């Protein structure tokens, strides 16, 4: 019960903080719209107008990942700058539990991205919003976003020891877009990248969402994204425990 209170309180708090950030507005709404527009024009000029919903969903998911990545990457760093990281580490709940709701809030803020690209596509490009399996779409979306949040938790844990988390965040945006096939098929990538795609929750998440919208098997990818999300939860908590121990033992939590 206490854990649920920590999660609910942290989630609400971080959603409020993110809601006041112009930078997050850029990440979660404006950037995905710009990328969606680029994708629409590219698909149109390639004569693939029928795939505009595909582009909308992909660009929206790119926004979810960007919000998760920069939110989770920045989470530890911002707390460090604000001097609140030590308080989080010293709080009675485990550090993983303290930062779990923050990470989830980051990815759920990214849902604005999907909403923005779908509305933008509908209004400006006439993208048809007919979903093949609307109920499964409504199930796939939160499952995927939650899995991304849990993946963000794993990332955040590694940033406890890493002084330059923001730089790593800058690097990881495009590779996950590419390897997850968020907006183009991973079949265009070399074969050796396939296992990387398989272990990424967004790969299965976007498949579930895309199949729910355009038709295809939803349950398989949905099961995979849920499974990988749970794996991230376990790994994230374990890594938080290990890295927190290292940071305490070496007295490097603040890294200043």
């Amino acid at each position: 019960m206490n854990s649920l209170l920590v999660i609910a309180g942290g989630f609400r708090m971080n959603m409020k903080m993110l809601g006041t950030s112009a930078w997050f507005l850029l990440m979660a709404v404006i950037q995905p719209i710009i990328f969606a527009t680029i994708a629409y024009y590219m698909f149109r000029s390639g004569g693939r107008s029928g795939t505009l919903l595909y582009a909308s969903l992909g660009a929206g998911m790119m926004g979810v990942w960007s919000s998760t990545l920069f939110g989770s990457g920045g989470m530890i760093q911002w707390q460090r700058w604000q001097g609140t990281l030590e308080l989080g580490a010293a709080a009675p709940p485990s550090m993983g539990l303290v930062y779990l709701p923050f990470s989830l809030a980051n990815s759920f803020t990214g849902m604005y991205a999907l909403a923005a690209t779908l509305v933008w596509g509908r209004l400006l490009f006439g993208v048809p919003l007919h979903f093949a399996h609307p109920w499964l779409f409504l199930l796939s979306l939160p499952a995927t976003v939650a899995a991304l949040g849990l993946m963000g938790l794993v990332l955040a844990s590694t940033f406890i020891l890493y002084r330059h988390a923001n730089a790593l965040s800058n690097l990881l945006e495009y590779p996950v877009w590419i390897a997850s096939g968020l907006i183009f098929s991973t079949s265009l990538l070399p074969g050796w990248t396939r296992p990387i795609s398989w272990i990424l929750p967004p790969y299965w998440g976007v498949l579930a969402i895309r199949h729910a919208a355009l038709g295809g098997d939803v349950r398989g990818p949905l099961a995979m994204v849920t499974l990988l999300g749970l794996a991230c939860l376990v790994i994230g908590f374990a890594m938080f425990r290990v890295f927190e121990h290292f940071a305490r033992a070496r007295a490097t939590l603040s890294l200043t």
Partner: protein
Amino acid sequence: MRRWLSVFLVGGNLAYRGLFNWIHPAIYIPTMLGAPLFQLIFFTKLGQFAHAENRDFYIVGNSIQACAMSSVYGMTMAVANERWFGTLGPLLASPASRSAVFLGRGLPVLANGIFVSTFTFVIGVVLLGFRPGLHSVPSLALIVLVTVVSCTAFGMLLGSIGLRAKDFFFAANLAYFLMLLFCGVNIPLGTLPGWMSAIGRCLPLTHGITAAREVAAGAPLGHVGGLVGTELGIAAAYALAGLVLFRVLERESRRSAVLDAY
């Protein structure tokens, strides 16, 4: 003149080293080299998937656009970070020529932009099979230089706004992403609506990228002289606008005592 040059060259170099003292390989490599590398792969593959343009279209567009990360963010930070570090007051209290102070900051940013663009082109050659032909390399190099100058000048204008604006990173980020959309980096200008391509033609990058694509396809430099000249004209216009804005905002900040205020 000697003093002007000294402030321009030595001052610009010292300011860059001071303001960007936090940059070292652990930050520089992922941000300035890693991100453009993956951006190049992303858009090339997206273009392939969309059956839009040929591979070289994306390689040239993104390799040149990669300099914007250095130019736009670098110049914004080169001015706005003075306020962040609390050194803006002493800087503006000095009798140094504002044009030397301002333009000198652009020189290291310019060098960095050229390096990042060149690196991205090399990645295009090594990983994606870009083969522009040896005879077009000098022309491409000149176009890259002009385009990076133009982007740096645009960054100067944005940096000047950072003298007063609270959330200057928002403006820099927004400008960076909009350039991806408006400047024909990944979409031919002819595909964009008229008003978008008109805006694109007033921005840096657009003419440089068009010229570079023609040169990479085998056109001689003389054939794209007009485009290169226009890009240079845009560079001069933005540099002048940035300098004027810098002076105006400096005066206004002094008058209303908000130089270091957030």
